[in-house]
């Protein structure tokens, strides 16, 4: 530890500013508030600040971050973001350092985010112990008002001097090179502790429950509490609370194209779970439409979902959300205190599922690989099959049930289920329904045109679990697209003897909407396979030999006697409304919940468990799903309701 006079600290900081190898940013005033901004002189630094408007996350996950540039005049030309000049960030408060450490867990621990990692490595953090406390902050009661690691240097003001705690080699070097310091005396070091206690006493706002387990269980006990309805009725849905939050890290990704129609970039920008279109998918479905649910979701992310996953309270008590929230309903402190008064009202178990198969994206996160369209086959009025192949002819290496993120530069990116079975063949199929911008554009592409592919992503089917079993496949509508991958895997000569009787139930809207008619014809001919098809409606004159009615109506036709329900697995993929009814049918014929598998649709934007859009309660559909064992998620709120 070192000590430095205020004057020498200013000289130190001015010397850092002079060093052109670094960008130096520090806390400065903006009106009556404070912000981190480029520092011109040490005089502008306001180390006595209470809280900044935005947390330092803006340096690691910028508001608008150019992930990659592309050139539309070429078939497939992409260059990922370049590294910026190293940054020194001066005046970071302990709670913000803790927030960054939490974000590291999310962004670096599994499936590292290359862009975030580069910025983290490229930044030196000079922290400062809190001198003035914001009236909305409750960091003291959470114990986030001080920190022992996560900084390169930590400054603690003791009267006219600062004590410098060295946190890293890099920090030490800066001090050696630029700062006129003395070794801190024992008295000075002891002063740090006093200062921190003094700070602790300045917090007017206190949260009654201070441990992660306490937050988590309190929230779970109050999932159905009327507080969410009451409080959210005052919510303006502006998502300011998530924008200013140091631990909110959800984002959206959009393509920008300049007027010359040549240069473009893929931009990552902050998104907020309070916004109504946050969970909207291409077909227009919104999965968390009710404001009450979105309002609750934010608090559950803070104190339950991320808490269960990583073990920390994803709120550091900075109080920024309360400052930003006009009706003043955003403070997790207020909610937790209110709930702790009332005890439990409306318990619902929420949980997250530990990811079974790590499906890390290869290469740089978000940067797609080039794939070439090898075949285009129109299947129905709305759906077209695209056969793709990576330019290096490497097979995709997927499991049934996995998906890819397909992108067209300038238009965007969306998830698509892989329709072909796993294979060593470099070609793979996706089937696309024309619903939005991306799919419409895809329909205009021709053979040999390029698209971007990321994947395979997500949790697919573990075929070992199906070994020696009868299998019932139930699909509705486009659910047949990923189902085909699974069916063809099972019917493949190499694998067929691993499975017993196979029953395929499939419902479509109209006869002309039935996908893979030619494939189905060959499946039907296989030994020990039954295919039953149905359509919702059949017009006069339409040729149709299957049933008419919902897919559940096919169950009486299932020759149940030929399968042993105790030795049967069932797979259900279809529109959200279908699950409840089909699963009921399966249960009726004696299939156990643990033998039922489902694949769910959500807005899987990043595909790697970061952006937050596909979250079903605490579960990331893109990582822990889209394939789930029904027994594991049947009680998961938001999954089937």
């Amino acid at each position, binding site marked *: 530890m070192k000590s430095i006079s205020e004057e020498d600290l200013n000289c130190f900081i001015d010397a850092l500013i002079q060093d052109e190898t670094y960008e130096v940013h520090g806390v400065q005033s903006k009106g009556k508030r404070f912000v981190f901004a480029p520092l011109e002189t040490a005089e502008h630094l306001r180390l006595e600040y209470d809280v900044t408007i935005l947390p330092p996350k803006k340096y690691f996950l910028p508001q608008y971050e150019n992930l990659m540039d592309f050139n539309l005049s070429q078939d497939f030309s992409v260059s990922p973001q370049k590294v910026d000049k190293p940054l020194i960030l001066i005046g970071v408060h302990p709670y913000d350092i803790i927030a960054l450490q939490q974000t590291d867990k999310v962004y670096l621990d599994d499936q590292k985010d290359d862009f975030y990692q580069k910025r983290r490595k490229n930044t030196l953090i000079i922290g400062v112990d809190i001198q003035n406390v914001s009236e909305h902050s409750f960091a003291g009661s959470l114990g986030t008002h001080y920190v022992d690691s996560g900084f390169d240097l930590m400054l603690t003001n003791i009267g006219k001097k600062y004590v410098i705690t060295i946190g890293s080699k890099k920090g030490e070097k800066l001090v050696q090179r630029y700062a006129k310091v003395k070794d801190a005396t024992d008295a000075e070091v002891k002063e740090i502790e006093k200062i921190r206690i003094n700070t602790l006493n300045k917090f007017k706002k206190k949260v009654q429950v201070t441990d992660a387990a306490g937050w988590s269980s309190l929230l779970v006990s109050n999932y159905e509490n009327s507080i969410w309805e009451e409080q959210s009725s005052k919510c*303006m849905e502006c998502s300011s609370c998530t924008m200013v939050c140091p631990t909110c890290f959800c984002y959206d990704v959009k393509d920008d194209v300049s007027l010359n129609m040549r240069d473009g970039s893929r931009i990552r920008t902050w998104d907020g779970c309070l916004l109504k279109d946050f969970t909207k998918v291409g077909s227009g479905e919104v999965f968390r439409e009710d404001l009450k649910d979105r309002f609750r979701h934010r608090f559950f992310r803070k104190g339950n979902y991320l808490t269960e996953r990583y073990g920390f309270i994803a709120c550091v008590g900075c109080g920024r959300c309360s400052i930003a929230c006009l009706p003043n309903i955003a403070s997790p402190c207020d909610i937790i205190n209110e709930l702790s008064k009332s005890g439990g009202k409306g318990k619902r178990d929420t949980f997250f599922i530990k990811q079974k198969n790590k499906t890390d994206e290869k290469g740089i996160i978000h940067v797609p690989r080039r794939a070439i369209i090898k075949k285009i086959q129109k299947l129905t009025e709305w759906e077209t099959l695209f056969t793709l192949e990576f330019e290096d002819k490497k097979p995709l290496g997927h499991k049934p049930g996995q998906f890819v993120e397909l992108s067209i530069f300038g238009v965007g990116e969306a998830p698509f289920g892989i329709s072909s079975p796993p294979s060593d063949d470099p070609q793979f199929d996706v089937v696309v329904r024309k619903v939005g911008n991306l799919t419409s554009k895809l329909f*205009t592409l021709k053979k040999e045109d390029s698209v971007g592919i990321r994947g395979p992503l997500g949790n697919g089917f573990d075929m070992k679990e199906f070994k020696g079993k009868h299998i019932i496949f139930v699909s509705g509508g486009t659910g047949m697209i990923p189902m085909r991958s699974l069916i063809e895997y099972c019917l493949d000569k190499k694998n067929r003897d691993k499975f017993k009787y196979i029953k395929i139930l499939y419902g479509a809207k109209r006869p002309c909407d039935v996908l893979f008619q030619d494939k189905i014809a060959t499946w039907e001919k296989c030994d020990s396979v039954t295919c039953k098809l149905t359509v919702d409606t059949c017009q006069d004159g339409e040729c149709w030999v299957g049933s008419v009615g919902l897919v559940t109506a096919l169950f009486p036709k299932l020759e149940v006697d030929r399968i042993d329900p105790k030795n049967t697995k069932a797979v259900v993929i279809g529109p959200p409304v279908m699950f409840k009814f089909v699963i009921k049918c399966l249960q009726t014929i004696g299939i156990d919940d643990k033998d039922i598998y489902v694949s769910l649709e959500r807005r899987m934007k990043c595909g790697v468990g970061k952006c937050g859009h596909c979250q079903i309660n605490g579960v990331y559909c893109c990582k822990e799903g889209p394939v789930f064992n029904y027994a594991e998620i049947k009680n998961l709120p938001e999954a089937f309701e």
Partner: protein
Amino acid sequence: MSKPKVAFFDFASCEGCQLQIANLEEEILDLIQLVDVVSFREVMKEHAETYDIAFIEGSVMRPMDEERIKEIRKHAKILVALGACATIGGVNKIRNQWDVENVKKDVYGDAKIKGNKYFDVFPTKSVDEVVKVDFYIHGCPINRDEFKKVVVSLIMGKTPEIPTYPVCVECKKNENVCLFEQGKFCLGPITRAGCNAICPTNGSPCDGCRGILDKPQVECVQEVLDRYNLTYEDMKNRCIIYNYTKEEC
């Protein structure tokens, strides 16, 4: 592919939105590479009656405007409302709070305007109150970047994405000190974003020129006014600038 023919038309407006396009400066060269501008009174003399995309600036105020816009709609494959006067009626709607005859009297006094079709006004209408509007470019004036995005989208065959979230989102990203904290009533929380919060970023409260969100959440209004020592009048005055409706806002 031949370039789409584009025409600009103005109704009751200051033509400032078209000026924004003229102000694209060197980028206008990129623009005319993409589209064939066949009519744009503010920058050229030529005019043609055949066009694919019509950009409409201004509000509809008179029967003759109504006829004209219906005629344009017939010719245009795509009709885009350009700027607040066209998209929401904007400042032109302020006068809807008074009776038309009284307004005429106030403005023109005893001048003989009776029977003159140019003065035959009815309460202001936005373009979509008269004809179908395919796409909206909001704002007073429009944001040039958004105009470019919409043009690029139309050329690429994309549906332009107009934000469904409020200005606060962009304002927060810009790290502004909230205008409410400065004792000013700001319409940011309920106004459609897309302007990059230009007014709050430069210290002025949002006037709502991009229109109010589809379903604004306003139950907390009184609480917010109380918390920041603002009055209902503060709010009302801010609302009527661009978003006057009969029902009050």
